């Protein structure tokens, strides 16, 4: 029954979003469905642990859902109110996901500190296979990343996907043994492994960050494996909290650049990729015949790789406005600005 439902909803999602992006998010639908089933079953069987766990999973899914919703919304046509369309929803979703991930990392870290002070009894029987699985999937992620595809790994339950721009980047984070927490909610061992996938649509700048992110994840799952081994063989219970803290740090560090980038876009920052090219362009425009000066230049990113610019030119009274306009458009198109608004002001005689 579960499988059927899963398949049904998954295919439903796919039919809505018949592009690469949505396929990335199919694990999200899986975990959403799983959360639903868990909730229903929990209510039916009146199991408190299941209910609270399913709520927890819902929260984890919100990030994925946000990414999913964003990739749907960003396909909407522009209308009167939203003259640029909804493309920015992606950036916004990336921002929200980044925030949630930081939040999660913070919680894992604080829990790790708590546990480091007072190591709890951890059920570590299933930790090793799960963590090895996570590691393998991460490795696959690295290799697939090099082909521009995507990979996914999830331990047992929860993943956070983190999608900046077209949802291509998804970031999962699994709490190893959450599935069986009936009596004591979170007092059992958890392992974290997360992987991200990355689509081809990103510019070159993101590749570096994303690759770093994947490497960080892989290191994280290696850490999980090591801590699982330490716990199993030597009974070093402190390995688990230390590992969680390490992973929380890794998540935080790998999220920060992406968060910074999306904040930059939302704040209409001058695109970093244009930062160096723009002064040259200004210079060239000012060298055009009849152009006195250039002022109020604003360049910003609408969504990935779509840059918008506005600037005002002060020109000589006898200058050929049309020629200047087309030349300026040419100059900035070469630099990568696709939508340009140039206001030509004629200087007073």
């Amino acid at each position, binding site marked *: 029954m579960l499988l059927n439902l899963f398949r049904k909803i998954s295919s439903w999602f796919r039919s809505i979003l018949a592009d690469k992006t949505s396929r990335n998010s199919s694990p999200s639908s899986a975990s959403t469905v799983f959360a639903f089933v868990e909730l229903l079953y929990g209510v039916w069987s*009146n199991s*408190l642990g299941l*209910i*609270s766990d399913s*709520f*927890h999973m*819902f*929260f984890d899914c919100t990030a994925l859902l946000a990414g999913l919703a964003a990739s749907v919304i960003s396909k909407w046509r522009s209308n*009167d*109110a*939203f*003259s*640029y369309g*909804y493309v*920015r*929803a992606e950036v*916004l979703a990336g921002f*929200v996901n980044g*925030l*949630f991930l930081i*939040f999660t990392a913070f919680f894992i870290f604080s829990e790790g500190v708590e546990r480091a002070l007072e190591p709890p009894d951890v059920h570590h029987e299933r930790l090793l296979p799960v963590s090895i699985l996570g590691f393998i999937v991460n490795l696959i992620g690295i290799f697939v990343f090099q082909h521009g595809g995507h990979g996914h790994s999830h331990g047992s339950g929860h993943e956070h996907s983190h999608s900046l721009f077209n949802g291509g980047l998804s970031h999962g984070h699994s709490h190893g043994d959450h599935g069986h927490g009936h009596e004591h909610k979170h007092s059992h061992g958890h392992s974290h492994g997360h992987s991200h996938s990355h689509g081809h649509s990103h510019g070159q700048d993101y590749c570096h960050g994303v690759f770093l992110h994947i490497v960080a994840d892989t290191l994280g799952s290696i850490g999980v494996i090591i801590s699982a081994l330490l716990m199993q063989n030597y009974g070093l219970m402190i390995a688990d909290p230390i590992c969680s803290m390490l992973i929380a740090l890794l998540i935080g560090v790998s999220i920060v650049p992406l968060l910074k980038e999306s*904040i930059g876009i*939302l*704040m*209409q*920052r*001058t695109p970093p990729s244009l*930062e160096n090219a723009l002064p040259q362009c200004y210079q060239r425009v000012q060298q055009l015949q009849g152009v006195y000066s250039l002022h*109020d*230049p*604003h*360049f*910003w990113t*609408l969504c990935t790789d779509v840059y*918008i610019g*506005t*600037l*005002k030119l002060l020109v000589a009274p006898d200058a050929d*406005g*049309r020629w200047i*306009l*087309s030349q300026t*458009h*040419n100059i900035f*198109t070469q630099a990568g600005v*696709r*939508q*340009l*608004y*140039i*206001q*030509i*002001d*004629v200087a007073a005689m």
Partner: protein
Amino acid sequence: MEQPYGGRPWPASGPGGGVAGANRRLSFCRLTRYIVLLCFAKVLKAVGLFESYDLLKVVHLVQFIFVMQLGSAVFMVLFQKPFSSGKVITKRQWIKIFKHAVVGCIISLLWFFGLTLCGPLRTLLLFEHSDVVVLSLLSVLFTSSGGGPAKTRGAAFFIIAVICLLLFDNDDLMAKIAEHPEGHHDSALTHVLYTIIAFLGVADHKSKVESWSSLIMPFVTVIFFVVILDFYVESICSVKMEASTCARYGSFLIFISALLFGNFWTHPITDQLRAMNKPPHHESTEHVLSGGVVVSAVFFVLSANILSSPSRKGQKGTLIGYSPEGTPLYNFMGDALQQSSQSLPRFIKESLKQILEEYDSRQIFYFLCLNLAFTFVELFYGVWTNSLGLISDGFHMLFDCSALVMGLFAALMTRWKATRIFSYGYGRVEILSGFINGLFLMVIAFFVFMESVARLVDPPDIDTNMLTPVSVGGLIVNLVGICAFSHAHSHGASRGGCPAAHDHSHSHHGHSHGHSHSDHGHSHGHSHGSSGGGMNTNMRGVFLHVLADTLGSVGVIVSTIFIQQFGWLIADPLCSLFIATLIFLSVIPLLKDACQVLLLRIPPEQEKDLHAALEKIQKIEGVISYRDPHFWCHSATVVAGTIHVQVVSDVMEQRIVQQVTAILKDAGVNNLTVQVEKEAYFQHMSGLSTGFQDVLAMTQQLESMKYYKDGTYIM
């Protein structure tokens, strides 16, 4: 008293002789050699001080100083030959020498007395500062021309280190209980007080010396290490290297070695190094390392590093290239230098001034202070009474204060000037901050909801004794906050803002959120906030947060009353459920507004004006059509817009621009760019930047207008 330093200074000529012609590399090699020498001497000095601490346990202080000064004086007289060589000393110089001797005597008395009381490690940390460091510290503290922000920072580090050492260093309680009949001293501060009292009677808790002969060897070591070697090496090094470099390395090395010895001195391995192997090892717990000592040592090292660095003004420049002759060209950017080294106190002062300038940020700031004060009272009380619930509650509140801090920061940042990179200015920070606040409120509401559902199924037994005072206190604080913010509201309404942000007249009054920690049976609520209509997104977010917390504490109190009076355990989860729903509902409009702004929607309340304005533009004489009209609300005060206007070829472009700008300015757009295109331009544009669809549409449009174009397709 003897006069050990009376001789002339050590001659400056090293074995290397003429250094003048030596090139840089050679001098660096030589420097390394001296650094190694310095390192060696400092480590030995630390050893000597630890040794003398052990010695002082068996020898009386005055005797010890006498023997030490005598020994070093004999040695110095033998080596320096002050009487046989050099100039004849005049009478005035004799007086000076005498003064020096007396002062030096008192200083060394105090020094070793401190050594007996505080242990070698702390003495080293406090006493072994080179004169360069101390001088620059004093000049920072007591003169106006301190030498820039870096030095101020160094002085601050120094003071922090001293404070750390005085207050946070729990110097071996056990040993002191045994030693001092008054009872144990917690910190070095009381230690010093004890010292002063005890000093009057020159009290010394020393056993009598059994045999002086066994002490000869340790005394020689101490004299040699502490006084003589250090003196010579230091004078060599400060001649060979710069005094500041010498001071920097020296203090660093001696602190590090002091820390190491402090840890390992009583270790069995180092016993072999010690010149005196004394049987009583029961004092091994004495003057051990503590966190405070380590922290203050780190700060001492930092401050010594900063204070001893020579003040370099105008020496730093960025290399911009090479002149045709091949000499490097430097760019001395005074502004950039100033910016980068802005001192922390000045930064704090300036930002405080900025905060207090504006009404919004002032409100937030005052409330933040109030909240923090309450939190700290709670924390301290919790620590004092050792109540875990209070402590965790306090930390929770501290975490919630972060929302306030973020709001404050955003309110500050909003006023930053636009830069080259952020060409529209930082106004959006406010919206982002409101968005983040709303988002986190939603998360909190979600968790509260989830937990209360879980508890609805199985209401836990709650201990209601603890929570009432705390939640009442929180409620009072939050009520004050709400009063302040609703006062702010009446002021804030006059401030212009982004229309998108506040044309929704939903009332936030009466919403709150509380998160109750059911585990320890008490919950707290706290609120921060500002209300309604006239606020910008940031203030709304902060306000919602506060308000939510207020109602949280109200909910807690109500449910406590219910539980205590009627024993309805279900009241608690019901309250939480209700509150969570309220928060959720009240946050949604905020999030929606923020999202709309972030998604570059046309400001909703100006939508009609803008449409009317566009129609007007269409009717301007000479305008064929317009396309790509984009208007969005950048921040509270900036509404940006861009539009392309197509005109027939024989009109004045400038006139059109002016007319369009005027029309749109009336509609509220204050950052506008109008691109005027004559008709031949269409195809160029469509080829350049728009998609196929647009080209098609435009071509059709043109054809329907029956215009003939001479334009050539450029792309």
